[in-house]
């Protein structure tokens, strides 16, 4: 009889659970772990005897190897636990065979097996096995296949991922309560997170968005494909959806709303704060092929009599996004477009210089009702990163950033296939 140190979860499932006197209590049905710690600690086991199963405190248990088989032995009394425990997962029911996020590899993987270790301080889950060997082990043929491959001097492809580098995401309707779910996902770059979310099923997507704060949710939402965006928005409570959408650029929101049911859009718009919803309503008026449908309404404009110093102070207090800060516009008192001024020129000029002195004299702009195709030409001809958009009275309405044009080109070429 030897005490074991590390073992695979699949090797202990269904093994005997015995009392101190060696009497068989039942078979191991599942293991409960507390995921609050960095490595999940085994807190209880589920034992099946006959048709009944019970959950028993793991404190007095040791895992032994008898005749090359694992046995769970209880030293002292084994306390039966009742009720739902917070921050716990069932390894078989909630982790094994399910998908989880491989943070390092930035993708969804399926759990074939789990590696556990018994230390002085307790029993912990070390790593998840997502490789082919784990699959064969579950089928009970890993050892013979290994022996066979040994003859040919090759090994099975195996892949273990440390628990620190995975995040469980698939809880279905099991009603699991975790105090900080999905916390490791926040270390991912938003576009990686968005890619992973695209691969998830609808329920996981909903759960993850419910856990993200509004800022993060808005950033991730922006990166998703339109049909996933719609699903996510429709699955959120309307107040939260509105709050998240407020944090997104108006043109992106308008693009999503174009694809949604009118009734739902109206509800969301009336829930959003008036400033954001007005911008979006403005954009929704434009037809698909009009420049206005592509433009962003976030832009920065100054009057031409302003000094460079005042302009810089204004920028400091506005803290604009990097998309909008490079191109700054000069408008008259009726918001009519006059000229462009570059961030470079503002920075290199003396503080007391008037903006009218450094603004560029040849101004290029487009009209909001022009056809979207005309913009590509202008942008490539003048080597611009952004173009101001005005209405028929020359009042400045927004600007078009090169990103949006590239996106639009990609979309139309995709349609053409």
């Amino acid at each position: 009889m030897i005490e074991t140190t590390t073992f695979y979860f699949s090797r202990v499932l269904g093994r005997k659970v015995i009392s101190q006197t060696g009497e068989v209590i039942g078979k191991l049905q599942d293991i409960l772990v507390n995921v609050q710690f960095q490595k999940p600690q085994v807190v209880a086991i589920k034992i099946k005897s006959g048709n009944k199963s019970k959950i028993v405190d793991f404190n007095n248990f040791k895992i032994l190897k008898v005749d090359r088989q694992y046995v769970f032995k209880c030293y002292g009394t084994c306390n039966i636990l009742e009720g739902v425990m917070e921050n716990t997962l069932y390894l078989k029911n909630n982790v094994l065979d399910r998908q989880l996020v491989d943070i390092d590899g930035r993708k969804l993987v399926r759990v074939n097996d789990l590696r556990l270790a018994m230390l002085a301080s307790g029993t912990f889950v070390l790593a998840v096995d997502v490789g082919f060997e784990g699959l064969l082990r579950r089928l009970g043929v890993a050892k013979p296949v290994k022996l066979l491959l040994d003859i040919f001097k090759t090994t099975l492809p195996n892949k273990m991922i440390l628990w620190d580098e995975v995040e469980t995401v698939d809880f279905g309707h099991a009603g699991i309560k975790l105090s900080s779910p999905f916390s490791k996902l926040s270390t991912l770059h938003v576009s990686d997170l968005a890619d992973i979310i695209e691969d998830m099923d609808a329920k996981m997507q909903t759960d993850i968005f419910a856990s993200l704060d509004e800022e993060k949710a808005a950033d991730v939402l922006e990166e998703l494909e339109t049909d996933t965006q719609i699903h996510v928005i429709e699955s959120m409570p309307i107040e939260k959806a509105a709050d998240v959408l407020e944090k997104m650029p108006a043109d992106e929101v308008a693009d999503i709303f174009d694809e949604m049911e009118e009734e739902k859009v109206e509800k969301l718009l009336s829930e959003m704060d008036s400033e954001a919803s007005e911008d979006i309503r403005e954009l929704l008026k434009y037809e698909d092929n009009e420049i206005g449908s592509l433009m962003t309404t976030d832009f920065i404009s100054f009057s031409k009599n302003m000094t460079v110093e005042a302009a810089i102070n204004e920028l400091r207090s506005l803290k604009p996004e990097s998309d909008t800060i490079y191109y700054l516009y000069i408008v008259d008192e009726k918001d009519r477009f006059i000229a462009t001024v570059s961030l470079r020129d503002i920075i290199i000029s003396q503080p007391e210089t008037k903006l009218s002195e450094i603004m560029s004299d040849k101004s290029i702009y487009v009209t909001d009702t022009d056809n979207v195709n005309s913009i590509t030409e202008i942008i490539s001809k003048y080597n611009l990163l952004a173009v101001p958009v005005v209405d028929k009275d020359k009042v400045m309405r927004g600007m078009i950033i090169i990103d949006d044009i590239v996106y639009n080109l990609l979309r139309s070429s995709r349609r053409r296939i």
Partner: protein
Amino acid sequence: MDAVVKKKSIWRNIILFLAILGPGIITGSVDNDVGGITTYSVAGAEYGYNLLWTLIPAFIVLFVTQEMNARMGIVTGKGLADLIRENMGVKVTFFIFIFLLGADILNTMTEFSGVAGSMEIFHVSKYISVPLVAIGVWIMVVKGSYRIAEKIFLFFSLCLLVYIVAALMGHPDWKDIGKSMMKPEVETNFTYISMVIGVIGTTIAPWMQFYMQSAVIEKKLQIKDLKFSVLDVLVGCICTVVVAFFIIIACASTLHTNGTHINDASDAAAALEPLAGVLAAQVFAFGLFIASIFASVILPVATAFYVCEAFGFEAGIDKKWNEAPQFYWLYTAIIIISAGIILIPNVPLIQISLWSQRINGILLPVVLICMIIIVNKKEVMGNYVNKPISNIISWITIVILLALSATLVISLFQ
């Protein structure tokens, strides 16, 4: 609620329904693949209108299972392969997918044999038609996108309606048809029973369950779409049965009346020529050709997808070759093996189609039992677990299918 609002909501419902339309109808149409057409043709040629009544239980079984698939897909957002892996463990999954892979390779062979047979009616050699179709199908899946494929598929579904034309060209006796539907002369001999099993069995192939569920997920349908999706399933099931009905009639009113015996669907097309004219034969062959292409587009890619999904390999036609190598290699292998074997001279086509029926027969009850277990799990389905009534119908279906499949399997192995 006043009249105007009501009228508006009817329109709204129609529009919503049209948007959701697709998965059920496509699955329903792909159901009438070469195996299906063969079974219906043989049933019509051998028993005349006598077997038409079997389409009624076939319809019920088809509807019950596909409704469950649609509901599971919408509620969980997961494919059937995922759900089986997560809820039934690796061993059951392995068993199901080894058999599914085997059955589907054989099925794909029958689809390619349908291409070969139907094109021979148009005097095109199988050594030209089969490689061309195989390459075309491969390119379409690897280079195309699902959205376009779906539109093409909906068009394909319409093409299958040519069987109505083929049937009418045989001048069927409607009074006789009505009589045998209302009061069928059920025989109790062995060949009759196995024909009944054949008709019902071919209408619900196991891989269809997987396909239906992924199609629902692919469309991103949500719980609010559930009732429309059920309607879509219903329309799809009706399409399947209507097409089957007319295939049986087409063969019954010509081949059976003249006592012609046939072995497969291209036999039926060839035999129609002297009886109903060249055009009828060509219409029949055209339908067969469409059906075989339809199924040979969907079947290999779907199979590769489910196998990878179940075992955790990356899969999907939107992934690149080096992102999902197992998926693309499996897909390519299925096409090469199936098309290659059909090109072997004197390949035993009837044996191939019998073997694919046998394996399907073993597989179907297993898949259905898994489905019933999963669809009743509260932690998977939330509030959308089966209602008692669906459970009763489902279990009756399973018991009957088990009995039918067992009989079929035993009979085929004897």
